[in-house]
């Protein structure tokens, strides 16, 4: 199979080729956990992405809501209605549809913050590892400082500051602040991992050969070192998506995350919490279960990926 490495993000393509290589593919095919986790994650992803088309109702379209449908229990219990399969909340919104829309927000925020963290972390790690000296020292001290703050507190701080600065902010700004606050502590582990791998790769002879040829350092970093250090990063990123989603849920639960007009799973949990003790358990439990399901399947996938890649990709 001949393919040109000059086109496109070649390292992504070659990584993909490596993954579809029989060893890893075989490991996937023989691991029931991995397959199950992948299926569940795929379903959640599908529902989230295609929510407007898949969900039975649009719970955030005020014109379709009827207060008479409020607080209906799930379809299989007494008083339930099959068109609201998992029941409704206090305003008549269908829980199942709210789950899908909420998952959408959660996944989008989770993935966006991970992508941002990866970008910043890998760049810093590469620079620190390759250039060394004072750049390395400064960046690593920055990492140490970032790690000494608890992630939630940092997120709360940024979110609070954001709200104070832009009180009438448009929704997208609120999301932007949310994504930044989650990614702010996440980048550190990528930076450290990449720095470690870069320090190893830097002394390898193919890098020295490039230097002898006269290739510029930045180019060496980008074309030679980067493709070889991305392995552990991708494993970390997969697991981190779950963490990011939970962090976002926590923030939304605390009220500083997603705005109530486009609630994420965390917001739904918070809203439903108030009704827990009056017996309407479905309003908070189902969003909670959905969150657990997404986080668990992504975590399991990440675990499998780490084991599958580890002994073979050295």
């Amino acid at each position: 199979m001949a393919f040109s490495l000059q086109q496109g993000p070649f390292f992504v393509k070659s990584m993909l080729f490596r993954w579809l290589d029989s060893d890893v593919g075989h490991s996937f095919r023989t691991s029931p956990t991995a397959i199950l986790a992948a299926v569940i994650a795929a379903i959640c992803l599908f529902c989230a992405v295609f929510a407007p088309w898949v969900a039975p109702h649009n719970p955030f379209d005020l014109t379709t809501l009827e207060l008479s449908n409020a607080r209906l229990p799930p379809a299989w219990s007494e008083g339930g209605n099959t068109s609201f399969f998992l029941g409704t909340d206090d305003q008549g919104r269908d829980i199942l549809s709210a789950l899908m829309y909420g998952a959408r927000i959660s996944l989008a925020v989770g993935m966006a913050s991970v992508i941002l963290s990866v970008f910043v972390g890998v760049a810093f790690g590469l620079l620190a590892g390759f250039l060394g000296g004072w750049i390395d020292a400064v960046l690593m001290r920055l990492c140490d400082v970032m790690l000494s703050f608890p992630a939630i507190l940092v997120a709360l701080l940024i979110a609070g500051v954001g709200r104070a600065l832009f009180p009438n902010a448009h929704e997208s700004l609120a999301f932007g602040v949310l994504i930044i606050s989650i990614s702010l502590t996440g980048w550190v582990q990528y930076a450290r991992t990449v720095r470690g791998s870069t320090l190893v790769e830097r002394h390898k002879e193919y890098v020295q050969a490039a230097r002898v040829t006269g290739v510029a350092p930045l180019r060496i970093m980008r074309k030679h070192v980067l493709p070889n250090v991305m392995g552990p990063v991708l494993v970390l990123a997969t697991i981190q998506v779950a963490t990011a989603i939970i962090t976002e849920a926590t923030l939304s639960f605390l009220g500083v995350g997603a705005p109530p007009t486009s609630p994420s799973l965390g917001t739904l949990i918070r809203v439903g919490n108030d009704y827990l003790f009056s017996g309407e358990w479905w309003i908070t439990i189902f969003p909670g279960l959905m969150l657990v399901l997404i986080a668990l399947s992504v975590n399991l996938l990440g675990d499998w990926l780490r084991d599958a890649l580890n002994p073979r990709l050295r």
Partner: protein
Amino acid sequence: MSEVKTKALVRATDLAKTFDVSAPWLNRVLEGQPKMLLRAVDGVSFEIEKGKTLALVGESGCGKSTVARLLVGLYEPTRGGFEFDGEDAHAAFKTPEGRKLRRRIQMIFQDPYASLNPRWTVEDIIAEPLREHEILSDEAAVKERVGELLKSVGLSPLDMVKFPHQFSGGQRQRISIARALATHPEFLVCDEPTSALDVSVQAQVLNIMKDLQRQQGLTYLFISHNLAVVRHVSDQVGVMYLGRLVELADKHTLFDTPRHPYTRMLLDAIPKMHDTGKARTPVSGEVPNPLNPPSGCAFHPRCPHANARCSSERPQIQAIAGVKVACHAVEEGRI
């Protein structure tokens, strides 16, 4: 050696490289540790004529790999320098024109598994110097050149789409050679190119290197710890110990009549396949810590001929009977 200045392609003069291996600054201040300097190379001078091979031999810690890296511009010397084709190489490396120099000097490394980027195809690996120096403009010409280079090292041009892990150690080393030859260099620095290879593969690679040298008039600096291989490939041999050159002679002279006690010890220590019944001079001691080299002559603690002068005064390399030796005992005619 005669003092007539033959136009040597490579002339190294008093090359020296010191590494600072001290503990981090904070540790040093808090624990009162001194600065630690590693004199990897301490004043090495030699010349290589065009089309010839100089081999540098020595055991671990002698600095031969550092010399190799100094000659390709991977390190900056702390003292001394080398001239390539008459001009100061390290000064040239710093200028934009220095890039032209990089086309003429190339390197082959020891580890066939680490010297090729595992994520690149063979074509990209070999073509990198061509693309970097913009030697050939269009892709078709580059492909053709890569195919030619693969053929010249005994591989097939069809191999260029494969990845390094699909090749054996010997084949990877050939790919490294092909990459080094891409820019038509004149001088190749080879750092233990066959040490990691099996004997039969080593024979193949050494034969290719010799053939290429004959065909293209290449000049080699060949680093090795294997004296038998060195005997096969070199014209001149330099023996290094703890960063210093202790003997420099042409091949036959060195192997037939070694002068320096360390050279004699090395030659004696090689396990021989034939005539194994011969008695050998006992070998004593180990290579000292390069961070803390002995005073005077670095070899004196292990030398059977050492005297008081040897432990206090560092011997200078001198021409004695057509051979360059750094030894008081040889100079004084004691051995």
